[in-house]
């Protein structure tokens, strides 16, 4: 397998930061029993950048990505996505934000088992308040074509291979043309070769479409496809220079 499809250095400095995380803290509980899951984390990611977030289980990477994706509200600090302040939003606003501006790729694809690949894409297209059925159908077909799934479009997830399922999940994440794509351990359920393909595909889509992508992973082999690497350990976020990457892994 060749790994030269992505050249991080070329794209690193494109555009203004789309995502800005400033001094974000998340604590659970109060007083003596308070547990700090994320301590004063800051990061910013520009358009067209694909970054990875590395950390062992329990390090807080899921908490951080959940706050960025509008699934959790930070205890303090600011999260900005484009012109919107995510950290101030109500639950309802967050639901709309996720539908319209965030694309998710989950660990185990989590496709709707009783919808076909194409319907899974159309379903998310129906979530934003404003949507056009016709435009959605066209976009779903285009995306499935690009992802090499045209002939699998009318199969339910059960009839798809693990790699195909993750590709459908990527299509679903791109369907509503989001600004931010959050990817949670996309290779957890795949073997190395397939995992590489999926991550390469993700990196390519993020770049070509000028999205901002964050991938949570603990798989060091996937880091080479990303532009920046952040490490998180016991709730503390640091930008990695590529030398200290999680000793022992």
């Amino acid at each position, binding site marked *: 397998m060749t790994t030269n499809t992505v050249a991080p250095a070329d794209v690193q400095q494109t555009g203004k930061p789309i995502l800005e995380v400033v001094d974000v803290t998340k604590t659970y509980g109060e007083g003596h029993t308070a547990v700090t899951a994320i301590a004063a984390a800051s990061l910013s990611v520009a358009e067209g950048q694909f970054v990875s977030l590395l950390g062992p289980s329990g390090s807080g990477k899921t908490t951080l990505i959940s706050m960025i*994706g509008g*699934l959790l509200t930070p205890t303090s600090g600011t999260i900005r996505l484009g012109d919107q302040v995510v950290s101030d939003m109500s639950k309802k606003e967050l639901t709309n934000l*996720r539908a319209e501006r965030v694309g998710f790729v*989950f660990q185990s694809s*989590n496709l*709707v088992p009783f919808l076909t690949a194409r319907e899974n894409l159309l*379903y998310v297209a129906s979530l*934003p308040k404003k949507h056009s059925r016709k435009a959605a159908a066209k976009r779903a077909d285009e995306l499935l074509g690009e992802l090499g799934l045209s002939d699998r479009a009318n199969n339910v997830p059960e009839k798809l291979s693990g790699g195909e399922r993750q590709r459908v999940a990527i299509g679903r994440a791109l369907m509503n043309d989001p600004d931010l794509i959050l990817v949670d351990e996309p290779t957890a359920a795949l073997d190395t070769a397939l995992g590489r393909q999926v991550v390469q595909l993700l990196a390519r889509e993020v770049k070509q479409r000028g999205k901002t992508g964050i991938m949570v992973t603990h798989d060091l082999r996937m880091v080479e496809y990303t532009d920046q690497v952040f490490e998180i350990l016991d709730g503390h976020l640091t930008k990695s220079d590529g030398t200290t990457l999680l000793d022992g892994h």
Partner: protein
Amino acid sequence: MMLAFAEIKRARGRFLSIIGALALITFLVLTLSALSDGLFYGSTGAYRSSNADGYAYSTDAEGSLIRSRVPVADAQKYGQIPGVTKASGLGVLLTSGTGPNGELDLAVFGVEPGGAGIPTTLTQGRLPNPGEDSAAAVDKTVVDKGATIGSTIKVGDRSVTVVGVTQDSNYQLQPTIWTTIPTWRAMQASVRPETRGLPPNYSAIALEFSNGTTAASIPPVTGTSVLSTDEAALAIPGVKEQRSTLNSIIYTTLLVAALVVALFFALIVLEKRELFAALKALGTSTRRLANTVMTQALVASIIGVIIGVIAARLLGLALPAQVPTLFRTESLIQISIFTIVASVIGALFSLRRIARIDPATALGGALQ
């Protein structure tokens, strides 16, 4: 909508189980209700089809026409009470007779033509005229057993010719024939020799009231008591008990329907917790997921009810005529609506569970 229907279509097996359960429940409830209605209508037709507003019985009869016996003179006494516009003697005899196709169970009603207590549900012919002692109108169930206008029906040594047909006018599940008081007396004397030689009496007195008068407002003649026609129907031995027993079974079964649906959707939601969390993370509102579940409950219960209705009607057609079932459209609609409402209420219980699913659990998976 997309999720609701796609799941019913593609996960058909699981929905067939809930549809099947609801179809069986609907079938059971409808059959019980048809039996309840059949028993009630078959028992009380003579009262419900009557033009009388109330009946006077002997006090010790507790509202039973069979046990009641009132002196002939009481009819006149009732006729003089203000508010009573008509007071007519009524004679009742449960017996058997012979029709064109052989032996029949019969309830013979002796009435005063033109008076109170005559059936108003004549569908063919006429009632006997005053003094026409060899004629009778018969209930349609007698016609179903082979009689037609012009046939002869014999009770004891008396024969009557059928001159009319009434509908829904039976008494205690026995087909009625409506004849004159003298013919009733003659038949009674013929089949109940012990009544011969007693002073002439009636079984009860049928009353018609003027506007504003009720059974309760009539001062009863000594030795008698007055019931309204509705009360009289419920006073028939067993009627009230049958109805309340069958109705409580029906209501319990509807409760079971709600429970079955509640459990089914509780399981479905439990099983889909992970999927629902992911869908919420993708930006699906709780309301939309709730709509999905409610739509499914509604569709499953409507399909189940339709199948149950069809099955119950088919059973109704297959049942022999002796089984007193009556499938009334009104009961059918009512029960169908009740079953659907019970299902929807059952499904409502899973909404809280859906609301509690936290979209944040979609990330991190098993590692979290």
